[in-house]
């Protein structure tokens, strides 16, 4: 009893000291209406899973947002700092991280939330805080659109710079039907919102057109696809695998070949990554491959220099775009507000942003009806015999 008391006191003292050291970091609850000077360091928070099962998302998005802060910030004459807010793919953690972001008065906008689950959860808080959240990866249709009579799951403070699942699902299915002339398709999902949403749309579309569809649901942690591929019929034409983890799509392709099935793998945004290189496979992406675009070479080189030894997926550059949108809205607010802005000013001007040289090819403008982009197109890639990705078509 005696010893415990002494040690308990010591530790409580340490905690108290630690807390005291950070007590000064608190700010008043009225952060959201606080005026921020445009010549001070503006902060943009990136709310994405930096760790956890989808940590590649966070690493990509964080690094590309950093790049945008440097480049776009310099071009617009703003001092920008990126603040990392890790959601660890857990919406509850995202909510706590969101609180931290809201409390920081210098934050003028949020890039993210990266996942549809977190987006639905934290959007009310951001709306109440008048903080704009622009995502480059949460593609669940119901976030911004009314589907089947059910209301939107996110608020008016939620924006996304990529087209949502409903478009991607239908253009992919159309291509499969019209160009690949499929009679039988296997649709797989990885038991998480992104792939389930896309899989549902593609399955529904194809079934309505009379194509035979086999639907499989695999866990995200499955790495041995032999058993599932075993169930795919020998005469199946295409295996639609909208996985976020490219290596898993690759594993499916390899298993198909190993078991002598003729089905070709058709992936989506997540599969455009160096790990996916099975010749003959297709992938539809919301953006053309940056490394293939000579006009973006300087940007890609700059990213590679800042992030040695790493590779990026399609989800990275979209965060660059999202950061750019926020910064341009902030710049407009700065001009209108003569050097002083609030979060609400930035939020109000998001939808007026138009960008000519958009990182994801072409120009960028908002749809007038929803918080989605006006132009939604997808690019189709096919992997060549030498393992290289080749852009072969534009789907819309």
């Amino acid at each position: 009893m005696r010893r415990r008391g002494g040690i308990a006191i010591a530790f409580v003292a340490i905690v108290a000291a630690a807390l005291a050291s950070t007590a000064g970091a608190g700010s008043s609850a009225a952060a959201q209406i606080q005026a921020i000077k445009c010549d001070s360091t503006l902060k943009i928070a990136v709310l994405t899973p930096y760790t956890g099962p989808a940590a590649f998302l966070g690493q990509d998005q964080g690094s590309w947002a950093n790049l945008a802060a440097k480049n776009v910030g310099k071009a617009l004459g703003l001092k920008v700092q990126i603040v990392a807010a890790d959601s660890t793919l857990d919406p509850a953690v995202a909510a706590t991280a969101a609180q931290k972001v809201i409390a920081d008065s210098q934050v003028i906008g949020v890039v993210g939330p990266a996942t549809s689950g977190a987006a639905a959860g934290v959007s009310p808080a951001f709306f109440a805080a008048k903080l704009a959240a622009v995502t480059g990866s949460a593609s669940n249709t119901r976030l911004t659109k009314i589907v089947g009579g059910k209301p939107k799951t996110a608020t008016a403070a939620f924006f996304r710079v990529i087209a949502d699942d409903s478009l991607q699902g239908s253009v992919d299915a159309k291509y499969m039907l019209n160009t690949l002339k499929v009679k039988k398709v296997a649709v797989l999902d990885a038991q998480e919102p992104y792939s389930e949403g896309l899989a549902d749309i593609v399955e529904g579309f194809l079934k309505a057109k009379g194509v035979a569809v086999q639907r499989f649901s695999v866990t995200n942690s499955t790495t041995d696809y032999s058993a599932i591929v075993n169930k795919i019929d020998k005469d199946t034409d295409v295996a639609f695998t909208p996985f976020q983890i490219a290596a898993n799509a690759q594993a499916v392709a390899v298993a198909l070949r190993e078991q002598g099935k003729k089905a070709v793998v058709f992936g989506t945004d997540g599969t455009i990554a160096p790990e996916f290189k099975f010749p003959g496979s297709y992938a539809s992406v919301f953006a053309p491959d940056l490394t293939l675009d000579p006009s973006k070479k300087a940007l890609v080189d700059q990213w590679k220099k800042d992030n040695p030894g790493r590779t990026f997926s399609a989800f990275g550059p979209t965060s660059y775009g999202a950061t750019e949108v926020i910064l341009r809205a902030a710049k407009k607010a700065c001009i209108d507000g003569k050097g002083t802005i609030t979060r609400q000013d930035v939020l109000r001007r998001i939808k007026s942003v138009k960008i000519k040289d958009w990182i994801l090819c072409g120009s960028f403008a908002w749809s007038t009806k929803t918080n989605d982009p006006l132009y939604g197109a997808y690019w189709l890639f096919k992997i060549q015999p030498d393992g290289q990705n080749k852009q072969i078509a534009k789907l819309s």
Partner: protein
Amino acid sequence: MSGFDGDDLTQPLEGAREAAAAEGPTSPEVGRDEWVARHDEHRAGRSGLLGIVEERLSRIPWWAWLTLFVAVFALMPVGVTDGYWRRVAFDTVLFMMLALGLNVVVGWGGLLDLGYIMFYGFGAYTYAILRSPEFGFHWPTLLVMAIALVGGALLGILVGLPSKRLSGDYLAIVTLFAYQIFISILIGGDNIFGSNVTGGVNGILKVDPLSFFGHVVPVSKEGGVFNVAYLYIALAFSTVLFIALRFIDRSRTGRAWRSMREDSLAAQLMGMPVPWLKLMAFSFGAAIAAFTGTLFVALNGSVFPGNFDLTLLITIYAMMILGGLGSQAGAVIGAILISVLLELLRDPSNSRYIFYLALVLGLVVVLRLSVRLAVVAGGVIALGIVVRLVVDQVDASWTGGAPDGTGWLGDLIARWVVEPSAVTLWLKSVTYISLIALALLLTTLRGWTRLIVLVPTIYLAAFVWENILAVEPAVTRYILLGGLLVVVMIVRPNGIVGEKRVEII
């Protein structure tokens, strides 16, 4: 040990002590009863000023400590108006409740429950299903909380049933299986024989906040800031929980649990219904977790299967172990310490303070205030300055990087630690693994070789921290938690305020 030699009962057999010494630390002590030998150690107090302070403090009754603690927590929002830290306080209170519940199962019942989080999830989903537009139910808050509590208890009994036939290790695995089954049901729950039960991977959204007797407690005030009322509600519930557990601990059941934990076979022979006791422990812990789950989802407004993964389990285990297995106060202290530490670790500027403070404290504890400490400290600082100068001369890019975060400490450290502008994979792996190897080596060294090796190790640790660990706080936290579990178990298994347990072989 004082008072040991003169007592006949504690004298080992002739020659046994030499044999025991020859065997080494890994074999049982022959002819010596640990518990009896430590008897005098238990009774003797510490001498000096610290001893007097400890003695006085130990006389303060537990409820006075509790009142003080609650007062501090309740008054905290007055000093800290930051919505984020208040929210962290709320999360900490939830962690405390979870740690208290786990303490009942593991600390009091002695059952290693690796599926504890499933009960947390069960309570959260029960609340979400019964109070959201998902199925159109909007039942009263208190009723739903009661249902979650009772449901959790029943589920705990169900999961605990295998404990009748299985012992410790097997039970741990079965609970892990049960957890995996639970998560599978949550994930696939939107299509169980065609009907939606748990909302699947998309979870359940727009869950109603708490409302008592017609007054709805909104989750956020204007500006999206956390409503501190939730903190007070959680605090009230946790206080009630603490007091209830205290009474149970003093009751027959508590004593029965303690005896079952020490030696279940002996307890059974003495007439304790051990299988029932195990079930009760499981059930209690589960009920507490389920209840906490309702608070969790009420604030968050949504629930997903991803909310309940194993990293959360490890965090709660770390809290309980650090505080002290079997001790309620320990669970509370552990929860606060780790919760605050984890939040502080998110920001490199804050985490830097923690790291260097821990380093200095560690040195002081190990070396005591002495000449050796001054020598080591001086050596480390000197080494740092020299190394940095040399490296800078050789290749400026090796010191081109800048420390993350801001603050005077960061600037100071930047002059002392080598911070390359580009940290390659090779460099990361080599330095990290060398650090671990050196640290492990240090535990085997003694005397002046230890001091000599200590100096470069500390410098290397600072290098690794600044360039590798502090940069990715979200990964570092789990490395630290894992390491904490190991270190606590080896160095001080009874945690901060736990009781020392002696297993009689």
